[in-house]
């Protein structure tokens, strides 16, 4: 009995119907948070005493990198749930998370590169943080490619879930790389255990941006998963009813 809610969560139809009313709320919230935080961070937060205005790219770079790492956990954990419980929905979430994660990783690599030129004096350096982040990008691309590589849905899902689980070891390496090795990249600014080494006037818009990115990520993941649900369930009665209802309206 205790597991009943969990198995209902695994029903694509239930998930699709349940998440429909969330979408406008998530969209409003993420746009409001990101726009406010962007204006706050870019126009009103003070400049840094050493880097001047060039530090402001932190408001894109850090949230994108956070979500690229967190998104990998979401992808790998849904893969694991899919493997263990043989449910359809977790695999759909896993597949939907891969392109979003790849894009976020790409954004953090590009913004980091743009930031690196005026501050470090180079676009790219093969240090542990940057290289492990590049590996994360390739892992995401590998997930996308592996999904396409198999004729059978089940085989593709299982294989990519295993890849996601194996790649999970990279996440703590990315996170701790700046502490374990000598790197050009500076250590973490936002710390969970001690005081962050960023002035509160710059930190608040950054935290707001991070929350905004989380909402945006949730929104895009939901939209992607819903498309995947419709695609994989296109032979079921409820999807047909849904489509004919839309056609009738049009």
């Amino acid at each position, binding site marked *: 009995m205790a597991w009943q809610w969990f198995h209902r969560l695994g029903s694509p139809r239930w998930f699709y119907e349940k998440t429909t009313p969330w979408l406008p709320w998530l969209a409003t919230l993420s746009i409001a948070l990101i726009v406010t935080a962007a204006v706050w961070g870019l126009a009103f937060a003070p400049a840094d*005493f050493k880097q001047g205005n060039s530090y402001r790219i932190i408001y894109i770079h850090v949230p994108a990198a956070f979500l690229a790492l967190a998104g990998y956990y979401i992808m790998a954990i849904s893969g694991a749930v899919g*493997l263990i419980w043989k449910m359809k929905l977790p695999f759909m979430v896993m597949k939907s998370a891969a392109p979003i994660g790849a894009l976020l990783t790409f954004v953090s690599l590009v913004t980091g590169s743009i930031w690196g030129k005026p*501050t470090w*004096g180079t676009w790219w350096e093969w240090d542990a943080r940057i290289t492990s982040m590049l590996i994360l990008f390739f892992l995401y691309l590998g997930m996308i490619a592996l999904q396409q590589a198999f004729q059978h849905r089940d085989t593709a899902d299982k294989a990519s879930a295993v890849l996601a689980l194996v790649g999970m*070891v990279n996440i703590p390496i990315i996170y701790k790389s700046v502490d374990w*090795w000598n790197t050009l990249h500076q250590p973490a600014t936002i710390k969970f255990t001690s005081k962050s080494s*960023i002035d509160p006037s710059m930190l608040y818009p950054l935290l707001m941006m991070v929350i905004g990115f989380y909402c945006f990520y949730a929104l895009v993941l939901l939209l992607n998963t819903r498309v995947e649900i419709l695609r994989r369930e296109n032979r079921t009665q409820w999807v047909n009813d849904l489509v004919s209802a839309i056609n009738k309206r049009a």
Partner: protein
Amino acid sequence: MHPLRKQRLMIVIFIVVFSSVAVGLMAYALRENINLFYPPSKIAAGDVPHNTRIRAGGCVKPGSVQRASDSLEIRFLITDGTADVKVNFNGILPDLFAEGEAAVINGIVTESGEINASEVLAKHDENYVPPEVAETMKDKGEHQKTCEGLKYGA
């Protein structure tokens, strides 16, 4: 939990643990090569090959920067608190290069233990402070710490 699911859970845990151990051992074996640069104490101790291209990293020693008046030539010392190494460079420095800040130098270690640099990068710290706050911190002597902690694998 169903026994079959428990078994599959064990397989998933095994995959994660096994790949972590494998990658962990690999990183441990390569730990010297993953470091981006050598600390000055290793260069001073002669652990670094001469006449090959290497990277060195450390704090630019306050008061050690000497600039030529008629060219871009610059000499300075980098330190990790244990040893100092002399760096010669002729080129454009990044804006954030300064005394008391960390720098990463790409160059060749000569027989005499100096570095002839072909590239100097600034390694900025993780602190972000508005100018006014930085001023008051300077007055209190809080932000005078040069290259805080000096952890460069020394």
